[in-house]
């Protein structure tokens, strides 16, 4: 059918000092269509979304809604025009109730009718099957529920265009399913949905069309059914992707060391984060991983190893010697590094420069009174910027002005500089473009071949299979299985995760 166009962008340009973020970008959204917006990090997806929602002002180009040109100068303009957005990060107020979050800023009347609002909210939450009470304080809901409340809000606003900006990053599989159901439901009602995500599978599961951006330019618009996955990736990267198949697991290394004593060994480890006591070990040059659904306790496990949460019990041995890890510094001094899951909250120190961020861990280990000299710091920074191909204007640029992938590389550089024997990487590839993902995977294998041990966590099982030679499977905050060798395949992992019982998120 020849659908009615609800949103059309033409020749959109946006420039930041020194960067042309968007150049002559076009985009077309039709009624009742789910349209994926794809591109590497820094391709301009977020900028385009922000232009569309009035967060940024475009420098050039036109926006047409149902054929009529519109000016979007503020988020309110966008809302009034029927463009609603749900962001990856929750943009609700945690101190207000669920119902308020759904209705605030929308009513014309200057008074709040609590009774009516709560009733409407209850109805809506019920119809969308969202497990939250209208009068519950939003901050007391799990992140996933908060996300769904945000979607419920957008849904209720009779929007013509719904933008979902990486909504699935913090949802587990069941919640993603629910979201997809919701999206298809909305599609039937004639809402045009722009879906931004890094998960390729999800794109093919729900989307009709795919628009690809690269380096701030429009690459092309395709029918999802007619664009094979590999081709999509190559369009995003702008090159053929033989690299994908190049990846060879260093099976040799791990086999060789199989008999060796563990570098790190823990038994009965338990922390305040509420995971069941678990045993764990890793050998020299081994890459292993924790897998499981979101909230299954994989991050909590590695945090316990690193001493990031308060350790309640269990014994820990490094190279066979019993040690105490009470706080991160203890772990660091033993040669353990930890790259945290939430880069923004736990990883970067935003206002500090790239250089300072790189030397931070090493400096802390040396102590406050033994400063790294300026010359050394500059040398280290240059070395790692080059080694990891970090794209930054200079080592003195604040890290917060880098793109997500490059920030992650800086954090990696920080821990590599600390020269760990055992490196824990918790979701190092989250929210990062495909190219950088591959680089990081390769780097992990290289580190292992140098004799370092690595624990790798990722939400993407493909990725885990690429790098890990042994997987610990977690469910409901318990370690429920360990897979290695021929057991390492998607089906077996799924089986173990599902493990007979019904899996659900433990909010």
């Amino acid at each position, binding site marked *: 059918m020849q659908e009615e166009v609800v949103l059309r962008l033409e020749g959109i340009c946006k420039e930041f000092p020194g960067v042309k973020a968007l150049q002559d970008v076009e985009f077309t959204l039709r009624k009742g269509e789910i349209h994926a917006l794809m591109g590497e990090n820094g391709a301009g997806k977020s900028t385009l979304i922000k232009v569309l929602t009035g967060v940024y002002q475009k420098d050039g180009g036109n926006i047409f809604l149902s054929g009529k040109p519109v000016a979007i100068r503020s988020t309110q303009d966008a809302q009034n025009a029927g463009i609603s957005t749900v962001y990856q990060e929750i943009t609700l107020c945690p101190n207000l*109730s669920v119902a308020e979050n759904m209705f605030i800023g929308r009513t014309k009347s200057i008074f709040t009718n609590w009774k009516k609002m709560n009733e409407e909210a209850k109805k809506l939450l019920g119809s969308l099957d969202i497990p939250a009470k209208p009068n519950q304080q939003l901050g007391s809901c799990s992140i996933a529920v908060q996300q769904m409340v945000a979607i419920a809000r957008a849904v209720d606003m009779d929007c013509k265009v719904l933008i979902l900006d990486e909504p699935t990053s913090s949802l587990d599989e069941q919640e993603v399913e629910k979201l997809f159901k919701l999206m298809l439901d909305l599609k039937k009602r004639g809402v045009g949905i722009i879906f931004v995500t890094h998960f390729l599978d999800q794109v093919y599961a729900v989307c009709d069309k795919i628009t690809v951006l690269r380096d701030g330019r429009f690459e092309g618009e395709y029918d999802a059914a007619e664009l094979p996955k590999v081709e999509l990736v190559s369009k995003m990267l702008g090159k053929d992707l033989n690299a994908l198949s190049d990846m060879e697991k260093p099976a040799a290394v791990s086999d060789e060391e199989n008999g060796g004593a563990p570098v790190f060994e823990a038994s009965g480890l338990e922390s305040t984060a509420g995971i069941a006591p678990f045993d764990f070990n890793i050998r020299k040059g081994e890459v292993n991983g924790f897998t499981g659904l979101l909230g299954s306790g994989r991050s909590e496990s590695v945090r316990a190893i690193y001493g990031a949460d308060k350790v309640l019990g269990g014994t820990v041995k490094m190279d066979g010697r019993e040690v105490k890890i009470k706080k991160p510094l203890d772990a660091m001094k033993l040669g353990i590094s930890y790259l945290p899951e939430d880069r923004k909250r736990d990883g970067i120190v935003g206002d500090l420069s790239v250089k300072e961020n790189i030397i931070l861990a090493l400096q802390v280990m040396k102590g406050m009174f033994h400063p790294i000299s300026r010359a050394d710091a500059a040398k280290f920074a240059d070395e790692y910027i080059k080694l990891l191909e970090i794209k930054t204007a200079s080592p003195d640029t604040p890290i917060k002005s880098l793109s997500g992938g490059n920030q992650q590389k800086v954090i990696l550089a920080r821990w590599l500089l600390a020269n760990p024997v055992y490196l824990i990487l918790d979701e190092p590839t989250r929210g990062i473009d495909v190219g950088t993902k591959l680089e990081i995977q390769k780097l992990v294998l290289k580190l292992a071949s140098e004799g370092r041990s690595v624990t790798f966590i990722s939400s993407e099982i493909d990725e885990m299979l690429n790098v890990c030679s042994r997987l610990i499977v977690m469910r409901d905050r318990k370690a429920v299985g360990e897979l290695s060798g021929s057991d390492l395949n998607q089906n077996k992992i799924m089986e173990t995760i599902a493990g007979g019982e019904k899996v659900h998120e433990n909010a």
Partner: protein
Amino acid sequence: MKLIKNADGTSKKISDQNLLLTITIAVFLLMYICAVVFLGSGFLKPQTFFNILNENAALIILSCGMSLVMITGGIDISVGMLTALVCMSCAVNLDYNGGNVLTSILIALGIGAAFGLVQGYLIAYLEIQPFIVTLAGMFFAKGMTTIVNATQFNVANEEFQALKSTRITVPGMGSYNKLGNYVPAYVEIGVIVALIVVAALFAVLRWTKLGRGFYAIGGNSQSANMLGINVKRTKFLAYLLCGILAGIGGFVYFLHVGSGSPSHASGAEMNAIASSIIGGTMLSGGSGNIFGTFFGVLSLSTIKNIVSSLGLDDAWWTNITVAAMICLFLVVQSVVLSRKNKAKA
């Protein structure tokens, strides 16, 4: 989220705000019982309680304004000196410039609104830190007070004196003095004003779009913006309201003391902040309750009364006790909240 009745009655959790409000009221009752037990039944007389209200009507109004801006995540430390400026300006207007009470009230409101406008604009639209802006506002008011008139003087204006000595009898609350004569209990006009302010502000915060906007921007101003709230305007209105309330509070203070002096209401901003905190308003924004603030003021002044009744008449001792009280309160709040957070996690 105090007044939300649970639709299905299943949730037994009390929210942080509710908890803090409960603590505040409990502490006030405890204080008052202590006062009764240790200082004799004088504290049982309703008039003693009404006197606390009479003394603190202005502080209640100032604290309401303070709570308002604290809920939005800001602070306004100019209110104390603003009170002094209002007193002095009104006093000069009445006695030296031949003005009447009405023009004085207009002056008070005008000064408050002017401060609110400027401070609100600088904070909301130019995004300058509230602390620094209102610090400058405080300095400005302080200096202006002495520029208006450098010395203290009592106002002689008859119309004003009549208003000042107006007592509103509270029926049924009187008591008999030593001679056996019935002495009716009374409150001053300021108390009525303060109660109206408390009620009005409670309603605004609870049932209006603007009021909920204050909470929203205090909770997360970026989110509030995304939710379609005009953050700048809301913030601006919070400071404007706070300024106007400081004007009203200033006049009520003036009505109570009946004089102009550069040293009037010195430290009132700190008392207002302390009352708000004791009342459960968090400086980090997003939570607070006007009733809590009201009880915060009462708790604070009950402590002061106890201290001075104990014969430790030195202002020094009052200060030390109040400080110890704030300290205790903050630590208790901090511990309770962190326990709660841990329990949730």
